[in-house]
């Protein structure tokens, strides 16, 4: 599904990613772990098409499409979804209105008409229930005055609505208390299928207790220095990241 080869990327002229290789197949869950500043969030920004980051070398292929050539919205239309570490506020635009706009923009890209209102409302109700979201929440302005946990839950709600092929969860666990974490993880697990894939970017292995990864990669100084299975996450939790630095 997603093949990354020798990916180098810079921000403001500074090289952050220094040769990443990663292969994600449909049905897989990958966790990318690493200390602060190792390039985890940069990787998610680069995959999703944030123009603040420049790809200087390497390739990024998603379902046979060269992502480097595509704008962020075109990548989204192909099914790339990023759950933001810091979701932005859009005052005056309700959660419902935003998701409606997003869904219809994606449908339009596929040559489909707008989703009928009744179908949309049904889907919203269904997904809100899955994530234990109150209906009042849906008529609030997007992320405005949301708590950290509400913001993250709203990201996963959007993911549930958009049903992407590839979901990148960037530090989705930060700011979540244990109950919210369970709800979010439960939601992600229910949305998982053989057709889609998830990349979890996290500092801690806490979330991985609930969403069990098939592969764990350790990122350090812009490179994947070690890959393994979920045991690697436990090892990191126990030993910290210091020993990783010696691998680099």
């Amino acid at each position, binding site marked *: 599904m997603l093949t990354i080869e020798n990916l180098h990327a810079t921000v403001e002229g500074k090289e952050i990613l220094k040769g990443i290789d990663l292969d994600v197949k449909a049905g897989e869950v990958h966790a990318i772990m690493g200390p602060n500043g190792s390039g985890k969030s940069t990787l998610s920004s680069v995959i*999703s098409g944030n*123009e603040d980051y420049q790809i200087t070398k390497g390739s990024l292929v998603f379902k046979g499409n060269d992502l480097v050539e595509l704008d*962020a919205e075109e990548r989204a239309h192909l099914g790339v979804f990023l759950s933001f570490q810091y979701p932005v506020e859009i005052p*005056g635009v309700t959660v419902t209105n935003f998701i409606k*706009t997003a869904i219809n*923009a994606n449908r339009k*890209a596929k040559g489909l008409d707008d989703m009928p209102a009744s179908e949309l409302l049904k889907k919203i109700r269904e997904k809100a229930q899955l994530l234990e979201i109150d209906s009042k929440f849906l008529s609030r*302005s997007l992320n405005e005055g949301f708590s950290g946990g509400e913001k993250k839950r709203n990201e996963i709600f959007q993911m549930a609505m*958009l049903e992407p092929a590839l979901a990148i969860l960037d530090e989705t666990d930060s700011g979540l208390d244990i109950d919210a974490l369970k709800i979010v993880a439960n939601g992600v697990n229910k949305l998982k299928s053989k057709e889609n894939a998830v990349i979890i970017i996290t500092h801690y292995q806490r979330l991985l207790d609930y969403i069990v990864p098939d592969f764990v990669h350790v990122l350090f100084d812009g490179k994947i220095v070690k890959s393994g299975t979920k045991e690697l996450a436990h090892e990191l939790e126990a030993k910290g990241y210091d020993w990783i630095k010696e691998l680099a």
Partner: protein
Amino acid sequence: MHSAPADVVKVFHFKKLSMAYTEEELKKELETKEYEYGFYTDIDSDTFPNGLNEEIIRKISEKKGEPEWMTEWRLKAYASWCKMIEPEWANVTYKKPDLQAISYYSAPKTKPKYNSLDEVDPELLKTFEKLGISLDEQKKLSGVAVDIVMDSVSVATTFKETLAEKGIIFCSITEAIKEHPELVKKYLGTVVPPRDNYYAGLNSAVFTDGSFCYIPKGVRCPMELSTYFRINQAGTGQFERTLVIADKGSYVSYLEGCTAPSRDENQLHAAVVELIALDDAEIKYSTVQNWFPGDKEGKGGVFNFVTKRGICHNRAKISWTQVETGSAVTWKYPSCILKGDDSIGEFYSIAVTNNYQQADTGTKMIHLGKNTRSTIISKGISAGKSQNSYRGLVQVGSRALNARNFSQCDSLLMGNACGAHTFPYIEAKNNSAQIEHEATTSKIGEDQIFYCNQRGIDTEKAIALIVNGFSKEVLNKLPMEFAVEAQKLLEISLEGSVG
């Protein structure tokens, strides 16, 4: 019906309250609009020489078949205008129009006729498309001959009958001067006197178009009265005069404006609108205006120097809502004089400027009566190299016990070459007054746009979404079908402003 007479100055049409805006309704509305049912002003097809003097004013009055008192009124206005000078305090710069180079009376232009849409200005067609106007309608609007079965006569007649039954008068100002002189005489110039300001003075002397509306005591006008067009029918008057009188305990909602960018040869537009809300009356006045703003380099464009003001008697309420996206230079302050006790004034505004547009707009809330309340919500959106200023005055007179005002002025900036300015003036002469002023300035962030992009929403649509969210409080005040149109207009006005 396409051979509509060249002397059609303005055709009025009506809308039922909160009508669902279906294609079918739209068709009806358009038929109604084009059909001869409208109120016409007959004018000869000659044009006066350029320049302004007493003789020209006498001739205007004569052409319009006005009574002597009206001629005198105009001359008096002219005399006082001659002693006035053009104001320079607004935060705008422009080359002053040469008022002696204008012809103050000319036959309205005949709409050009086309055989197919291919001959029509592609820019205009693009705008229509974005507004979601159907092909047939596009043809009609741009003057391409098309046959439409006329089945709406009864609709129009019903509207007219409904209004007449209730004693509502809705006609052109010219007709009102002839048919209802007692009302015009009593109220014209009472809220905006000819001496009020330079452009109001000029308007008073030379106005030739405009509308008049009277709602009798205790009558709730059953439909929105509208002089709203998607495109100018026959060239809009340079100096329009509108007078709305809501008698005791009555209610009216009035819409005016034009959505399609009005490419008008007249550079200067100086309208005057006067609203009179007698005891317990309520007037809602909504405007969506999109005069030609000039091109991307700032060439051309309309100067819109308007005086709009209403007076509230006891327990009366006036609510101004405006969406201003057009004009090269705008100078406009719809105001309320809260003369009566317990009266209410409201001002809800969205002003958008792009490219080289300049807008200096806001309101005046003059609290004179006891327990008067006013609310000001102003949303300024600046893009390109434009300058957008809010200028507002909240004045509390010495006898205005317990006056209350709440003002909120929000500015949204797009890019880094535009400007947003706020000039709030507060004059309180009664220490029981409560005045609140809130102001914010924000920028559309790259991060907001990226967030939308990541969800599959392109940048144009993302901006529209953010702008609509920002303007929501004001858009919500507009009648529904008007709000939808205004929303689309905001999108169009800001196209290409980021990226």
